[in-house]
């Protein structure tokens, strides 16, 4: 099969893509954090802060180093002020987890007290809680360690908020980037959803449009499957429609024979009943073909006089002996599909004269719409059945009496014709009794 041999551009799976996204975000996070730590190491304190720390360390170092080892711990405690805490330990305690080295500050201290250079001094920024403190250690001549940390957060080391923000910015950035990437990955799925939503719609928007096969492998397979399914459904509908339309057309030849033969029946009563049977069959075929749209090319909008068209529908009905009147302006030019709109109006009028004695068609021109309403004085429709009657092949009087001509397609045809013009169709029971069918077409009607 052609489909199988066709070259398919290799594509990562969804999993691969998401892993790639994670990798990328992690790498970014790493890079940004490194940058942040690098910045902290450049961080420096005010000179007096560095000098005070340096002096304190020099004194403490000498005093602790000169004390005997068993006194050193106590000595460190004595040297603890309300500013610096000092502790002696034989080994350097491990640095707290998030504690960038403060290289800049270290340089300041060493510059002030060069004797500390031999003591392997290290400084870190650590922030237990919200205030940043400087901690660190230095080695005594005998290899043991003096550990210290500032108790008050250094005024200039007011890093807490800045650091939180700095840490948040890459996080937010990563969320946005990750989101965009995932969205891009799933874009074909959205195209697919839109196409799926269109399948089976009436009118030109229902025509099948193949979705381009793009995106991850899984999505591509779904898109390909959807495209062929869509084509199959469309072909199926088309075949059925064409078959039904062909039946409708072909029935017209025997009907024509029957009509010419029926005219030769000498029994008047029989001839009349034959005539009305034939008329019913013709009406059924006409409505079926109109419903299927099987009468050829879709109609194009033209400029018509909608007021005269409506009046003519009323006149045709009144020529057949019904009480149908038109109320509205003498002329109203409008661009729409005349056959579709006329059929819609004829269907509404036929329904109305079937159930009522007096029918009034009104045309009202509003600022933004033209409203056509067909009002009758019949029994109306039970409220709960109102939405039902718009469905194809629904006939409310099936059980009671079966004298309606057609298949129950009349109102479905109206709905389609009105939709084709971008209008709205509404059925309601009039407060004074009877049914009101309303077609509202947007203005200017240039559909």
């Amino acid at each position, binding site marked *: 099969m052609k489909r199988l041999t066709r070259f398919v551009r290799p594509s990562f799976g969804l999993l691969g893509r998401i892993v790639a996204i994670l990798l990328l975000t992690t790498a970014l996070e790493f890079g940004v954090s490194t940058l942040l730590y690098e910045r902290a190491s450049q961080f420096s304190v005010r000179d007096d802060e560095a000098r005070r720390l340096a002096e304190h360390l020099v004194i403490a170092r000498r005093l602790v180093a000169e004390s005997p080892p068993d006194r050193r711990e106590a000595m460190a405690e004595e040297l603890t002020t309300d500013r610096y805490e000092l502790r002696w330990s034989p080994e350097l305690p491990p640095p707290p987890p998030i504690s960038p080295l403060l290289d800049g500050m270290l340089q300041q201290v060493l510059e002030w007290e060069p004797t500390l250079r031999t003591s392997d001094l290290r400084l870190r920024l650590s922030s237990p809680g919200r205030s940043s403190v400087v901690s660190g250690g230095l080695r005594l001549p005998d290899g043991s360690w003096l550990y210290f940390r500032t108790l008050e957060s250094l005024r200039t080391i007011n890093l807490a908020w800045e650091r939180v923000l700095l840490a948040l910015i890459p996080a937010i950035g990563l969320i946005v980037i990750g989101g965009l990437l995932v969205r891009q990955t799933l874009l074909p799925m959205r195209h697919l959803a839109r196409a799926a939503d269109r399948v089976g719609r009436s009118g030109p928007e229902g025509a099948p449009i193949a979705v381009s096969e793009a995106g991850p492998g899984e999505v591509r397979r779904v898109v390909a499957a959807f495209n062929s399914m869509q084509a199959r459904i469309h072909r199926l509908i088309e075949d059925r429609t064409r078959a039904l339309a062909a039946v409708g057309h072909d029935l017209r030849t025997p009907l024509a*024979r029957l009509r010419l033969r029926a*005219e030769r029946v000498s029994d008047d009563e029989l001839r009349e009943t034959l005539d009305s049977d034939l008329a019913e069959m013709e009406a059924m075929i006409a409505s079926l073909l109109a419903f299927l749209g099987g009468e050829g090319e879709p109609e194009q909008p033209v*400029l*018509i006089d909608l007021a005269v068209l409506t009046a003519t529908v009323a006149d045709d009905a009144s020529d057949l002996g019904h009480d149908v009147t038109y109320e509205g302006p003498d002329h109203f030019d409008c661009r729409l599909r*005349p056959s579709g709109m*006329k059929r819609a109006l004829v269907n509404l009028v036929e329904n109305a004269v079937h159930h009522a004695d007096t029918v009034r068609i009104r045309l009202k021109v509003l600022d933004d719409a033209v409203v056509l309403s067909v009002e009758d004085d019949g029994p109306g429709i039970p409220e709960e059945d109102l939405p039902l009657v718009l469905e194809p092949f629904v006939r409310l009087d099936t059980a009671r009496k079966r004298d309606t001509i057609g298949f129950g397609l009349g109102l479905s045809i109206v709905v389609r014709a009105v939709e084709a013009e971008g209008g709205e169709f509404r059925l309601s029971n009039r407060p004074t009794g009877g049914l009101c069918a309303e077609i509202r077409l947007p203005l200017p009607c240039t559909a």
Partner: protein
Amino acid sequence: MTAPSIVVVEDDAALRTLTARALQENGYLVRTASAADEMWEALDALPADLVLLDIMLPGPSGIELCRQLRERSNVAIIFISAKGSEADRVAGLELGADDYLPKPFSTRELLARVRAVLRRGGREVSTGTREEGIRRFDGWTIDLRRRETRSPSGAVVDLTGAEFDLLAVLLDHSQRVIARERLIELSRTRLGDSSDRSIDVLVSRLRRKLSGAGGTAPIITVRGVGYMLNVPVERA
């Protein structure tokens, strides 16, 4: 005057016979053909005034035959088709057919179309030129073959069959008074039971539908006699 001669081209044998019989009984000379070759034979044997042409034929379609017919003669053509679509109708008329009759039709409809086309065709044969069947007055355009009326604004104005027929008669006799009795007689073929009143109703409807922006339609009542279209009509 000899009876008009009609060739019926229809592939359905029974319908062909029934159509031919209906026409014969109304005084026409009828020959029949089931497809293209038989039609050409019939036309070669004897000239005809009118060809009744089914669109869906085995072999060359009615549309194709219509085109070929038009290349060699001005014989009147009426299409018969099972498709009631506007597109088919327009296609047929554009190829030079004179009218279009959708299936299923009654004898009355068939005769009305045949008479109307022969009435127009008779003049055309005598003058030797085919006219398009277009009439113009006061900015209005009426296409007799398409049965289409356009207002001065270019909008299609939809008329009932009877109204259009009445308008066609008025156009044919423009600036001459037509007796009411004559109009009633003409409209009877369209309206089931036309009373005296119905002509007046038709006229008043036509006046309303053909009214212009400021004025009324130029159809005047000649008291006690009949009606008249009181403007010059341009023919094309």
